[in-house]
């Protein structure tokens, strides 16, 4: 019996093929129930997202089980199974554990560290549970994969830094101000980009929001959408004095925020920093503004540069995450092997315990006038014998599983004691 994962992801298969293979929930249920019923696999979980289609299963013959799953999938979506054959990857045992951990921890994602994949894996697992195709092995595997994903998220900064320009603004603001709660934001220009940046800032507690736009009706419209206040264009100077963060995105051909204006505004701010996000091209904020003290002025290229640095940081953190996953795989692989011998150990124990209890009852029936003391002694004697007998086989079974030959031992022990059969 082997644990394996087989499938394809964004690295090996083009989007055209991935979208063809993506299946809806109902079909997914039908598919895993069908596979389970056919008997090629004892446990099955199927993950289907826009970036990957993977089956995690426990089967005697992984190749057969893999073929069964993907044959059904291709049949359903009208894909020629031959096109898949060269693309599919298969990982067995430790490799499969590593793959599951990496996928859940978002290390195998197109954008490393993206948060959606963990939810998708959890959904797939829950779906399989509801179809009762999850046994002890996959249950242990996925529970641990979720724990590892959480650990990666908390112990590395893999998902910490902004990888979009609009979120980079939020992150920068947090390095200038001690928290964004109650920071006032001014939007100059009412474009989509500035709206997005404003939403991120509001999510972090920024308040109130002001909107300035040359077209008054558009200013009002955006103000309504963001629960903000529209301010007339000629009151831009006053508004600048009252806010901490400015997002500019007008279509003006010339800078509309000039150095002398900002200098005037800054003199009244008593050292409170002012942070400009100029996402307009051509730029709305005069370049020399950034030389003023306490003024931080980022144009679209600067923000992109921050994003690039963050991506490099992510890649560095991903390496640390890989090392962490590696340690977890080593730890887990021993545990999972135990999982395969534990059912045998339990049934062996139950079998001997059943014999002991039955024989004890029979023996006690023959001596009805035995004292409580005698009964206790017989009870203790029989228990001791059973435990002494069990000790070596149980130890051997555990050792065999750690040595990777648990499967043959469990079969042997089951045969020897007639376990797993209704005898």
């Amino acid at each position, binding site marked *: 019996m082997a644990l394996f994962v087989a499938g394809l992801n964004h690295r090996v298969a083009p989007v055209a093929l991935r979208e063809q293979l993506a299946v809806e929930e109902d079909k997914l249920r039908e598919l895993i129930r069908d596979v389970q019923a056919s008997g090629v696999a004892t446990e099955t979980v199927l993950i289907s997202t826009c970036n990957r289609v993977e089956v995690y299963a426990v089967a005697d013959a992984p190749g057969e089980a893999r073929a069964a799953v993907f044959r059904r999938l291709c049949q359903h979506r009208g894909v020629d199974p031959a096109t898949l054959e060269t693309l599919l990857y298969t990982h067995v045992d430790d490799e499969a554990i590593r793959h599951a951990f990496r996928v859940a921890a978002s290390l195998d994602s197109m954008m490393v560290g993206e948060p959606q994949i963990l939810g998708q894996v959890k959904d797939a697992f829950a779906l399989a549970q509801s179809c009762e195709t999850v046994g002890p092995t996959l249950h242990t595997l996925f529970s641990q994969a979720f724990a590892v994903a959480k650990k990666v998220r908390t112990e590395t900064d893999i998902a910490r830094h902004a990888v979009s320009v609009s979120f980079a603004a939020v992150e920068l603001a947090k*390095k200038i*101000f*001690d928290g964004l709660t109650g920071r006032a934001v001014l939007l100059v220009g009412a474009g989509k980009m500035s709206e997005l940046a404003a939403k991120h800032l509001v999510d972090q507690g920024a308040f109130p929001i002001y909107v300035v736009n040359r077209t008054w009706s558009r200013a009002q419209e955006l103000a309504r959408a963001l629960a903000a206040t529209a301010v007339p264009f000629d009151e831009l100077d006053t508004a600048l004095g009252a806010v901490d963060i400015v997002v500019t995105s007008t279509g003006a051909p010339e800078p509309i925020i000039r150095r002398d204006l900002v200098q005037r505004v800054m003199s009244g701010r008593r050292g409170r920093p002012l942070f400009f996000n100029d996402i307009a091209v051509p730029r709305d904020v005069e370049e020399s503004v950034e030389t003023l*003290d306490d003024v931080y002025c980022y144009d679209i290229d*600067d923000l992109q*540069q*921050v994003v690039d*640095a*963050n991506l490099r940081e992510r890649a560095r953190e991903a390496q640390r995450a890989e090392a962490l996953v590696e340690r977890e795989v080593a730890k887990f692989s021993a545990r999972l092997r135990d999982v395969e011998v534990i059912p045998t150990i339990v049934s062996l124990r139950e079998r001997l315990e059943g014999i002991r209890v039955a024989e004890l009852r029979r023996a006690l029936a023959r001596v009805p006038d035995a004292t409580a003391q005698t009964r206790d002694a017989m009870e203790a004697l029989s228990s001791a014998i059973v435990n002494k007998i069990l000790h070596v086989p149980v130890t051997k079974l555990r050792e065999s599983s750690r040595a990777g030959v648990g499967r043959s031992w469990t079969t042997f022990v089951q045969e020897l004691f007639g376990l797993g059969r209704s005898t």
Partner: protein
Amino acid sequence: MICIGNMVKMLVVLSNLVLIGYACATGLALAYLVQREELVHRLATLATIAAWAVHSVALIVRGVETGRPPLASLSEAVSTAVWVVVLLEMLVERRWQMPALGAFVMPVVLILSLNASAMRPQIGEAFRGAWVWVHIALAMIGVAAFVLNFAGALMYLLQERQLKAKRPGTFYYRLPDLQTLDRLTYRTLALGFAFLTTGLILGAVWARTSWGSVLTFDPLASLSSLAWAIYAATLAGRAVAGLHGRRAAYFSVFGFTMLVLTLGAGLFLPGRHGS
């Protein structure tokens, strides 16, 4: 009666342990800044706590051995100041959630400890007395606060530089935001100034009652007055003239340089403060 010879031997062992501990803590704190491994930070914190605990024991043993506060020579006083610095560092790091702080404070701690570990002559018997101990203790707490002030200013300058240059690097990712750093610099300045001022006044009053004059030349007294003047100007600027941020940080670095010179002068030039 405890054998003095054993005590001296024990003190040497203890101060070596303290030095090793602070060296480890410094290395780990710097490694954490570069590596950002949570485990490294935990180890740095452990090393700091352990070294500080041994340091506490060493100070007590020295006090018991000599029957006076461990403040009678400049090296003793600096060692006590270092003890206060590490205490403040641990408190601020925890309270303000600034895991990177150690990387800026512990190197200073290590350098000061190396200086303090060298044996220096003590102040004369005639100078000892409750007033003098209080004078030295207050001044040393002031010095300790200024070490934190210096670390805060340094962090501010590094973070500000990265934000202005728009090229996020190690410091951008590891250091806290500018406003928090500016507040840390302000608070430690106020704290340090209050203690240093009281300490210096006590010293001057004592000098007047002992020598009848505060103006006799003494290198440590003169230089520390200069450092005090820089800090006074910075604090006044911050309080009333809107001095803040980068400029205030420059002043802090300048003041601390003067303070280090003061200690250096106290250690190497002859004067009333020992040597």
